[in-house]
């Protein structure tokens, strides 16, 4: 899932300043699960905006509502007419949702209410960890399911650097050394030999460094899309 965190309230209040009729639009998928941008958070944020405006003696009308996914045109269509009635839409989706809204309805002013963090999962209640950078060239078969690109602070491909101590990364004692984890797992599986091979420089052109990525699947495209 995509994980995100609400932006600081002051930053949100500041970006909303020029607008009087505001929609706080929640997103019902990833950001609902990570408790950053679902209906509950949309309602709370709408209330906070109203209180702040009241304090500042500024007029505002805020409504909070949610669609299943802001990253699909069909789902945006369900609220398209309603959205047209606002000066600004504060999207509580990830960065993809914000941009999908703008691409589909260019006449709207859409503002981001969240900072999109990563692709990860909830480790425990209240803790979400990053597990994939979307590099476009998965190496998890080599490292037996632990990603060095994402989890090593230096994205090293040839084992732990000299900063690995007691299983922790040099950047902080609360960060596991990914290569220590990989080493122990490979050892357990009797596959440490993998770490003896020099892994060649990675082809980063499959990642964002090659520019924005588009997947085109001719086999599933509709005639009208061509």
């Amino acid at each position, binding site marked *: 899932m995509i994980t995100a965190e609400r932006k600081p309230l002051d930053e949100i209040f500041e970006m909303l300043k020029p607008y009087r009729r505001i929609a706080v639009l929640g997103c019902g998928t990833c950001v609902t699960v990570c408790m950053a941008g679902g209906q509950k958070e949309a309602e709370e944020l709408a209330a906070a905006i109203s209180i702040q405006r009241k304090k500042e003696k500024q007029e505002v009308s805020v409504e909070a509502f949610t669609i299943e996914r802001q990253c699909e045109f069909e789902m945006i269509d369900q609220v398209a007419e309603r959205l047209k009635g606002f000066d600004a839409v504060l999207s509580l989706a990830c960065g993809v949702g914000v941009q999908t809204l703008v691409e589909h309805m260019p006449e709207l002013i859409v503002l981001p209410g969240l900072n999109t963090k990563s692709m990860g999962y909830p480790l425990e209640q209240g803790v979400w960890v990053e597990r994939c950078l979307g590099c476009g060239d998965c190496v998890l078969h080599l490292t037996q399911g632990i990603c060095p690109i994402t989890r090593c602070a*230096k*994205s090293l491909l040839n*084992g*732990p*650097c*000299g*900063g690995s*101590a007691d299983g922790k990364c040099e950047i902080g004692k609360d960060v596991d050394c990914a290569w220590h984890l990989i080493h122990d797992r490979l050892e357990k599986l009797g596959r440490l030999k993998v*770490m003896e091979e*020099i892994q060649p420089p990675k082809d980063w052109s499959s990642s964002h460094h090659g520019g924005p990525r588009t997947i085109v699947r001719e086999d599933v495209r509709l005639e009208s899309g061509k």
Partner: protein
Amino acid sequence: MKAGSNLEKVINSGQFAVTGELGPPKSADISALREHGETMRNYVDAFNITDNQTAIVRTSSIGVAGALLQMGLEPVVQMTVRDRNRIALQGDLLGAVAMGVKNVLCLSGDHQMFGNEAAAKGVYDIDSMQLLKAFKDIRDEGKFIGGDDLEAPLSVYLGAVANPFADPFEYRVDRLEKKIAAGASFIQTQCIFDLDRFKRWMELVRERGLHKKVAILGGVTPIKSLGAARYMKNFVSGITIPDELIDRLKGAEKKKEEGLKIAIETIQQLKEIEGVAGVHVMAIAWEEVVPDIVERAGLYPRPKLS
């Protein structure tokens, strides 16, 4: 002979090598660094020049190396993969060699969060192993990473680092072996304070005969004060300092002299360990004591090889 540097000649002659270290300043005024270089002249075989050490912006390693060459001193240019991608790293190798640099040390580099530009984007396009292999291939195969041919061959003596004090411990010997395969001719280790652990590491190194395939220079840092020891113990990535050593300093009347004594004793012990080919003396911010250490450790005069 890979590049015929003084360091390489000393190592190949079988004599115990001594390298020093110069940390570039946070300014373009390198007069103090030049003085330190003069102080250490004739006491070390080559000078490591750190590359934006601990991720703090400083005069570039290659720039300082140029100044050293003009002074007739031999640099070991450190290159980390933190700040430059493969285009810049390979280009800088060519630039350094064109200027007369013969020794290059490849390393990962401390994470950018430790430095004075913590908001910087860490590059890490390639890792230190891949850097070493790339430079070896440039030298031995005449090819860049991307497969393109060099227009003319070049020579360079390649080194890498090893940290016997990092974890997982057993892996540190595997990693050394991998660095040798990737192209390292010499190895400089992290500062050695825990000699017992270093000796255990060397045992494993000898078991695999790795000491015969690469010249291992043990890292030695004289401790100037109790505060410096505590700082290194707690805040410097990859360094371990045993409590006994802290206690010894604590109990000493003259801390600086005790720090020197510890460094000299460490060198003397390293000389006795089979497979240790030399020492790398890192007296950052205490460069003036290097001649004293080298002399008292019985490593002066340095060999003069043509």
